[in-house]
């Protein structure tokens, strides 16, 4: 029984792990499960320095820079994310903490260092922009795989192409999305979202994949938004898996005292 998602290849794809290789086309649930683990659960924990370049329809760019730490309580299950912002300067040292669950709403906190304030954030709509980029919160911490129906649309030379339809269409802005999953690595390489008129309006894709400690890892990804005409490119550097991060890092203590792992 899988309980996670594939649709979120965007941000977390860099945490993917090597998946076992099947010769015959596996069942769709198995593909979804493997892709989910490949994209989100590489190693027991991970770290990366992330830069985002947000370009609007007029070509103006803005930059975001942060360090992300991740810890898995259980492969394919609960996990925690710690995001420490470095740029732009007005959000410098702000921390975003997520406790992700598979059976209930995530818990999210924001720490504002200027006020020493630990703020709780309502997690109802995950399809809102992450830090003003074209990525969504859901792209960072995950969309529950039980939220969509999945079908294997076709099998190409190198990809399984899955069509995913939301069980609760009112809660999302898309009517369905296609995902191209690499047959060897089970990495989701591209997702194409169709709007309510079934017209593609958003594409998230992996631009570069590298091997990191034996895990095929997306090191560059891009989301294009055809409605607004903008795009965001995300690059991952200094990726490390299995640092032995303690789960206690993902608590209030380390909001107020950022761990050494996030320093330059």
């Amino acid at each position, binding site marked *: 029984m899988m309980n996670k998602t594939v649709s979120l290849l965007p941000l977390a794809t860099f945490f993917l792990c090597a998946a076992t290789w099947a010769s015959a086309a596996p069942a769709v649930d198995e593909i979804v499960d493997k892709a989910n683990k490949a994209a989100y659960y590489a190693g027991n924990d991970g770290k990366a320095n992330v830069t985002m370049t947000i370009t609007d329809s007029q070509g103006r760019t803005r930059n975001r820079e942060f360090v992300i730490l991740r810890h898995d309580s259980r492969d394919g299950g609960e996990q925690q994310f710690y995001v420490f912002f470095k740029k732009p300067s007005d959000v410098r040292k702000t921390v975003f903490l997520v*406790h992700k669950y598979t059976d209930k709403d995530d818990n999210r906190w924001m720490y504002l260092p200027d006020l*020493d304030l630990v703020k709780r954030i309502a997690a109802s709509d995950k399809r*809102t922009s992450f830090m003003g980029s074209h990525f969504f919160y859901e792209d960072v911490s995950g969309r529950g795989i039980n939220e969509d129906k999945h079908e294997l649309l076709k099998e190409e030379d190198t990809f399984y192409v899955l069509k995913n339809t939301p069980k609760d269409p009112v809660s999302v802005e898309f009517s369905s999305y296609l995902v191209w999953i690499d047959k060897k690595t089970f990495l989701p390489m591209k997702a194409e979202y169709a709007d309510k008129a079934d017209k593609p309006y958003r594409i998230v894709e992996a631009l570069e994949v590298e091997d990191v400690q034996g895990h095929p890892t997306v090191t560059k990804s891009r989301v294009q938004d055809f409605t607004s005409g903008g795009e965001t490119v995300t690059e991952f550097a200094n990726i490390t898996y299995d640092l032995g991060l303690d789960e206690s890092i993902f*608590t209030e203590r380390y909001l107020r*005292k950022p761990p050494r792992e996030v320093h330059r």
Partner: protein
Amino acid sequence: MQEKVKRGFARAAGLALAAAGLATGVARAELQPWKDGLYDAYAIDLGGFVEARNGWRLQNDPHEKDASIAEMRLQLEAGRDIGRGSLKLKGDLLGDFVTDDYTALLREGNFLFSPLAAMDMKLGRQVLTWGTGDLLFINDLFPKDWKSFFIGRDDEYLKAPSDAVKASYFHELANVDLVFVPFFNPSEHINGERLSYWNPVLGETAGQNYRMDEEERSSFGRDSEVALRLAKNYGGTELALYHYAGFWKTPEGFDPAAMELIYPRLSVYGASGRGQLWGGIANIEAGFYDSRQDQDGDDPMLRNSEWRFLAGFERELARDFTGSVQYYVEWMQDYEAYKESLTAGSPARDEFRHLFTLRLTKLLMNQNLIVSFFAYYSPSDQDCYLRPKVRYRIDDQWTIEAGGNFFYGSDDFTFFGQFEDNTNAYASLRWSF
């Protein structure tokens, strides 16, 4: 009125241009490589901003200047890891054209380290916050700067720093935070210096014409404060118990012999809870304020003991649109004794002060435009305080902001009503690096 607004604009524009000139000058000098160099050579992490902010009263105030805020500010923050700890220095250089002061203010100067694996300590000047209220405080008895809040400085300045030792111990059962403040740190309260207020001694609104003396509490031990919190997170439900032993943070007492305001002794016992509910975040908090120098409530010169309670709920109403409401009440104890003790003719407070707040926040244009509204409304005091604000991030460095502080009240002596003549609007331009 028009003249005033014009002058305000002229000054704001002047300040903005000065800031722009300074900032572009610095930007041209390619600050980023220099900052990176500083980090590489000395492991010093530097940041800050330059800001011009200007605001004016929207009506006449017989006791105050027309300008509510007119200032240039440079904030510098430097951090460095030393051994297993980290040192942080953050200070402001402020040119304040309302008070004609040029000052250097240290906001933070502290060392944070872990003497034990399960323990953190922060020594020195620091900003401290806990509790669950949104712009309402029950168990957070760390100093506030109400002047900054009411004249439209950045939210950061609502919290005044404490000179304190904070020790935190982390355990499975609960986390313990203990804050010791050797010398009482009062809040920056409204004293007429730049905002007019109800003066109960005069029985009328006063400003620069009548500044009162204040008691100084500066002896170690006798004037020290202690704040304690026990906190535990049960799978996303955060529970906490609090205790505070110190003084009312604003002068809630008056010594008629010395004709000075005093900070009476106060102990607080409280609790809070916060967690998810109905797709949003709910919080409750309560506290008993034990006014230790007036435990019978029969001294009209000292504030009585009271219960405080608040409940709040926040949720996303639509994409990038969040709303929250809070209910808050102060329940005065020994109300009969208080009423009997009042001299004839002086306005009596209500036994209950009920307060509602509303916050609405809308993000637009890829979250670069933030439109927000915060309102306090008290049905018992029949007054309100509105804080609309618009903020736009021009790019990764430049931010402009405009907002207002609107006070209305049926009476001149209620909490927000007394500030009616201070109703103001402001605008700012900031360059961050």
